[in-house]
């Protein structure tokens, strides 16, 4: 959406933003002041879909000068150091952690904070010597990240192998109870030892991280990848140029039949999003000079050839519920066989168009844009009608085993990431092996990514990112807070009631 001059004044005089948030917001307003028809060559039709909220560009702006998500290969730091920052390869844990913190502040992204901060366990493992003192250093390092990378889209990966560093990291995140960094264990039951997996599952219950990703499935489809930001699966040493999203719950409004949606309206909007993406990617690669100027490129942390772009989808449940109503059904998406059929028919249209479209500068992913189940990180009113991704609307969730079986087939479409979240009852803390059974069962059913957290923890996954409930409540009172994600958490909870997810006990 374009900005207007008044936005500048609103940002400057806001009572609920920190100085740093105002600075970034000011830059974002500037990026959206220009007309994308002039700068990027958007057609009137493409622009119309942004203005009528059918396509949301997540405020990326119309002069994109860096890829949205950057996934550096931090192992380069271990082997070569960084010339631009005059850092030698680290020789001990202190040097490593210090160099990483320095490097993080130079990794761009849509939020200006790094969305990927490395395989923390494997980066640290060669330098672990004394677990007692190393633990103190690791904990301090993680706390430093929480207070300086004030955006919980910042994501660290661990696993699939067990390491001493991995265990120390898990111990530290449980003690710290910080929202940042977000974290994933790339889990493979054939590689990850059971005791390490159980330790991760327990941490996930207590502090909502690490989430579990189906590493075997992602490795097969994406090759060398990392989980970044919310739960985006992207090429390692590259990233994603852009992520706009189709608001299915908005697109559906006013159609007279499923046929009209599938054969007329949806293909038009979907095609428009694909061509819009071409224009954005071309600008970043051909005009912004990002790849010509960034030291990350020159020194091998990333390469242009490892980038792709993400084709986002949100609000499937709302689109399906709209059609169900049109067909005279009282059923709801999540507990309706017909609803699932409609859902798959909608995603098939999107999938078909995305897989036929010749993407630009995406050789790493066979010149295709990758479907992504976007969860909503936007304060727009329109998001009230767009349930995150393909998820079941909060309040309509069936019992747990049915829920997982309903969700897993929808995970299939989303090569660049999706995930489901389950709030579990307190009893699971004494029975973490039962949680692992649920996760393994989900993966065996084809699911890509699962988070399980205790329903009564303060640290909660809103959609993909983490917030503290207590801090989100501060936003409700109009007070400034450290992280922009807390503002989003407030908006998303108001829209989607994510703090009231069904609490699971006995599989219900």
């Amino acid at each position, binding site marked *: 959406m374009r900005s207007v001059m008044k936005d500048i004044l609103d940002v400057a005089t806001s009572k609920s933003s920190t100085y740093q948030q105002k600075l970034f917001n000011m830059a974002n307003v500037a990026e959206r002041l220009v007309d994308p028809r002039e700068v990027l060559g958007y057609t009137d039709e493409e622009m119309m879909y942004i203005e009528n909220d059918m396509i949301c560009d997540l405020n990326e702006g119309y002069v994109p000068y860096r890829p949205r998500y950057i996934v550096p290969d931090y192992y380069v730091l271990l082997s070569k150091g960084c010339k631009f920052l005059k850092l030698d390869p680290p020789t001990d844990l202190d040097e490593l952690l210090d160099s990483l913190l320095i490097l993080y502040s130079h990794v761009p992204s849509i939020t200006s904070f790094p969305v990927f901060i490395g395989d923390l366990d494997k980066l640290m493992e060669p330098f672990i010597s004394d677990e007692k003192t190393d633990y103190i250093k690791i904990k301090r390092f993680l706390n430093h990240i929480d207070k300086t990378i004030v955006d919980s889209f910042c994501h660290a990966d661990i696993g699939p192998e067990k390491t001493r560093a991995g265990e120390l990291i898990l111990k530290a995140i449980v003690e710290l109870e910080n929202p940042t960094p977000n974290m994933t264990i790339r889990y493979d039951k054939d590689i990850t030892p059971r005791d390490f997996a159980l330790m991760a599952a327990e941490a996930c219950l207590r502090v909502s991280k690490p989430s579990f990703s189906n590493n075997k499935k992602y490795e097969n489809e994406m090759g060398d990848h990392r989980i970044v930001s919310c739960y985006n699966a992207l090429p390692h040493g590259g990233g994603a140029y852009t992520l706009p999203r189709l608001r299915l719950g908005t697109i559906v409004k006013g159609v007279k039949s499923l046929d009209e949606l599938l054969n007329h309206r949806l293909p038009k909007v979907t095609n428009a999003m694909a061509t819009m993406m071409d224009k954005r990617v071309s600008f970043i690669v051909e005009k912004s000079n990002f790849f010509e100027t960034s030291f990350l490129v020159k020194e091998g942390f990333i390469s242009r050839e490892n980038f792709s772009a993400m084709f986002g989808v949100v609000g499937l449940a709302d689109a399906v519920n709209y059609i169900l109503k049109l067909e005279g059904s009282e059923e709801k998406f999540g507990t309706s066989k017909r609803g699932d059929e409609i859902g798959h028919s909608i995603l098939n249209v999107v999938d078909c168009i995305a897989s036929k479209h010749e993407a630009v500068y995406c050789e790493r992913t066979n010149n295709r844009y990758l479907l992504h189940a976007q969860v909503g990180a936007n304060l727009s009113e329109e998001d009230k009608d767009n349930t995150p991704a393909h998820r079941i609307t909060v309040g309509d969730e069936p019992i747990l085993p049915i829920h997982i079986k309903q969700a897993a087939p929808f995970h299939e479409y989303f090569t660049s990431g999706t995930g489901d979240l389950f709030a579990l009852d307190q009893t699971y803390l004494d029975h973490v092996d*039962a949680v692992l059974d649920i996760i393994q069962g989900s993966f065996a059913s084809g699911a890509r990514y699962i988070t399980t957290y205790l329903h009564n923890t303060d640290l909660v996954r809103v959609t993909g990112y983490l917030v503290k409930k207590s801090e989100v409540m501060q936003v409700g009172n109009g007070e400034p807070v450290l992280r922009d994600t807390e503002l989003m958490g407030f908006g998303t909870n108001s829209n989607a009631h994510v703090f009231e997810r069904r609490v699971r006990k006995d599989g219900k």
Partner: protein
Amino acid sequence: MLTYLREELEKMENKAVINKIIPFSNVDGPGNRVAIFFQGCNANCIYCHNHETINMCTTCLICVKKCPVGAITFINGKVNYDEKKCIECDTCIKICPNSSSPRTKEYTVEELFEIIQEYKLFISGITVSGGEATLRADFITELFKKVKTLGLTSFVDTNGFFNKNDLSNLIQVTDKFMVDIKAVSQIKTLCRSSLENNLENLKYLLKLDKVYEVRTVIIEEYMDIENTINVVSNILKDYPEVIYKLIRVHSSGLSQKQKQLMEKHIPSKEYVKELAGKVQKIGVKKVEYIL
């Protein structure tokens, strides 16, 4: 009562009356499990928390009249229950004079197996409980044989009161038992039935390496607490892998009548902890307590 129960059960032939199926249970053995609760019990313990699983329905029809939403009906000589209409207010269970429930269903082995198959990816195994599951040993033996083909484990939750010779086939196909030792010398006071063999059965199953855990609910006066703890601990000290779980009795959710019976007999938390200490001292490796 027991003769009546057996007759009823035999009438069912190849079907079993199931009180409840919990698709994902995390408290009935290791991992996530499908827990199946069989209707019918040979005991009637003072503190029973599943009172509605004790007897078969006698079609007295009291619940049909009292259901506030009309979910229970009497058709063709049978009490029927409409799951969709039920609001789970538990009125039917509370007013049943016979410790039974209209919310049971009959299943064949094949039908239960189909349900288990639906959940097989998400579970470590199944656990049969009750009531007293061993009353349907033949049925469960068939079920377990089929469950084995899915690579899942099969557990039996039992009160320990059975004739082991009748159960040889079931024992063979069962991976582990979870055994209650309710009391040693005061069984009749506590369980209000003349039952025996629980210790003998426990020792037998232990020798076969078929015990996952042993549990004793602690209630004062109705049972010989110290004696029970002592005897069980001395047996279990030679089996370091077996859990001994002490459970402090509680009366929440029980009927007024049951509450009155238990009122002055709930032990203090400290006492249960103290008992756990004694168990440990005798040499039991895995001691747990629930307060």
